């Protein structure tokens, strides 16, 4: 695995390889192929941050530029999936999901169940999430807990280029609707990625650092924040086990529970709001199924229960950072009854 590419390039490669392998894979979304009124391929943007760049040339007729109407094109993608295609639809910012929510949670997520298992909906909905781009409250949310709540959807949040490629390939091959969350701040992250195709199974958390003192469960961009904290804590003699959930639906309960059974301490680091979040979900899981192993109360590190602020200084405060993870971990380590 010598070759190093970015998270953005890894996603692009996954799309290209699957389109090469399977003719039923198509890509659609706003500005995926140039933007409204553009002459076409000459100014192909490849989406707002360039993930699909170049695919328009490679796969003529299979990269569709859509109007700015999420309710229409997400619906179209879902319909096409039920009719035999494998669309990968890009819904620019997850913040806009509200206008096409019926298509996602009440249609795509339900077809398999409403039609007695006879209908499959192999659609992937790619979307950007997360704060840090000075994009204010309507373009910076996480929202993955909303989709995790809904049975029938799979929810994927790659943290590294390697995972981005393998999870995207699995998402495309999967016969259920997949919500694929890409953090804006990760697109330029580089890492080793095999040139060949590979699929990473859903529901398999990744232990990205081993340690015996405390378990840090995290996901998405916060994996890197947590690793930074774990490196600082190691200098103080605290060994953290850092678990990247990779997918919140399905959820790898076993890896989380086994780790906490070993460490007896849990910190959950989640960039979303604190209520009804992945942080609360993992906390409840551990409190219920590994209560006997816990040696201290569970700590959660999350964003505050406010919209993402536009002020640069406030946004920086809003996003959980390594220092907050260090503090929470020290609280858990130092706790006495």
């Amino acid at each position, binding site marked *: 695995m*010598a070759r190093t590419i970015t998270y953005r390039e890894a996603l692009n490669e996954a799309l290209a390889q699957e389109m090469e392998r399977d003719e039923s894979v198509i890509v659609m979304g706003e500005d995926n192929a140039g933007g409204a009124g553009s002459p076409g391929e000459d100014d192909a943007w490849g989406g707002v941050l360039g993930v699909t760049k170049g695919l328009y040339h490679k796969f003529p007729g299979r990269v569709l530029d859509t109007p700015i109407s999420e309710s229409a094109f997400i619906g179209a993608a879902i319909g096409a999936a039920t009719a035999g295609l494998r669309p990968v639809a890009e819904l620019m910012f997850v913040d806009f999901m509200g206008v096409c929510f019926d298509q996602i949670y009440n249609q795509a997520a339900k077809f398999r169940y409403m039609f007695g298992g006879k209908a499959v909906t192999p659609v992937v909905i790619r979307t950007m999430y997360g704060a840090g781009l000075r994009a204010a409250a309507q373009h910076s949310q996480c929202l993955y807990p909303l989709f995790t709540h809904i049975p029938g959807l799979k929810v994927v949040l790659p943290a590294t280029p390697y995972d981005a490629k393998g999870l995207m390939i699995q998402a495309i091959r999967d016969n259920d609707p997949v919500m694929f969350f890409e953090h804006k701040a990760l697109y330029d992250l580089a890492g080793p990625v*095999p040139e*060949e*195709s*590979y*699929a990473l*199974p859903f529901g*398999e958390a990744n*232990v990205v650092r081993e340690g015996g003192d405390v378990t840090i469960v995290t996901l998405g961009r916060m994996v890197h924040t947590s690793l930074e904290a774990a490196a600082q804590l190691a200098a103080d003699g605290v060994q953290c086990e850092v678990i990247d959930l990779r997918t919140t639906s399905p959820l790898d309960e076993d890896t989380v529970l086994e780790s906490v059974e070993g460490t007896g301490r849990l910190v959950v680091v989640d960039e979303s709001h604190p209520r009804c979040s992945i942080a609360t979900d993992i906390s409840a899981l551990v409190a219920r199924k590994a209560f006997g192993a816990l040696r201290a109360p569970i700590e959660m590190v999350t964003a505050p229960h406010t919209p993402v602020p536009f002020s640069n200084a406030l946004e920086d405060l809003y996003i959980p950072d390594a220092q907050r993870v260090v503090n929470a971990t020290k609280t858990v380590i130092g706790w006495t009854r």
Partner: protein
Amino acid sequence: MTDDRIVPVAMPKWGLSMRLGKITAWVVGEGDDVKVGDDLADIETEKIAGTLEAPDAGTVRRIIARVGEDVPVSGTIALIAPPEVTEDELDTAVLAARAVIDAGVPEDAAGEAVLETADVGGRKISFAGAGQDGDLVLLIHGYGGDRNSWLFLQEPLAARYRVYALDLPGHGTSAKDVGPGPEDPGSGDAAGSGDAAGSGGTLGVLADAVTGVLDALGAERAHLVGHSMGGAVALTVAVRDPGRIASLTLIAPSGFGPEINAGYLRGFADAQTRRELKPVIGQLFADESLVTRQLVDDLLAYKRLDGVDEALHALTDTLLDGDAQRGDSAALLAATGGAVPVAVIWGRADRIIPAAQAESVTGAVSHLVDGAGHMPHMERPAEVQAAIEETIARST
């Protein structure tokens, strides 16, 4: 190190891409007397954990690298010296060594080895080399391995030879198609083009890859070192092209008896998760603590590449007939006509292919290695290196 009475113990280079190593535990302490091959320290790299063996006999007078500290490859981590070397002389040597460790990896340090590729019958075959001079040695890994299986051996051997390791078809970064499965004269499709050494089957496809790499390297003659299934591949090449092979070192080779741990082969091919894979991998080693999370993760990442699942199952079918070995390496060895030196190396604690099969390797010098399972080149690399060099030295 100017004082040649002082023997520096250097951070080894395990694998062509290694730049840093970390001592996880010192097995010896200052003042301990050691023999060549004694365990000195446990070392961890990005890829693997292993134990460093003593390069020389003597007294460990100074331990320089601390546990947990990153040390650049070839940095001095300890000093072995006789009693007549004074404390002052040792202190001077320690200062020099400390400066190297503290300086970290030099900017121009060799990074990832250059990976070369050859097109062999439409299959991309990857290989990588080390060493400038001397005879060509080609290392052929076993089932489920890759060129990195040789990471404890390739660099040390490169001091004397040009040492290449390849990824067989179905493995590493080579093409994943391994051909039609076992050669079976009874089935029409596989037997068509067969010559003496199984070119019709998957073993023939693997042997083609070896020949293709030798061609790409322009090698007229080469020494082959084959592990497990790679041993049978090396024999196949030697039978086909006898003039080209200068010596054969077979490490726990397949095909020298019916017994094999078929559960291991099938378990490796079938494992889908870390939980399933880890206990399977453990069977490879005498000391299961060598199975690090990184090793399991790397193998899992390999197994998840498109085409690997099919390749491993085809190889399992090639190696197994029911629960017994299908191949007949003794016949292949006989067909080589005893023209070149042959050695066989086996870990006494091999749980995949029993070490007793070493007795069936007629005409070979036999090395049974204590404290090693099916991977003596990983568990006891110094002994395996010595055996390979001895075999090469016997060739003419």
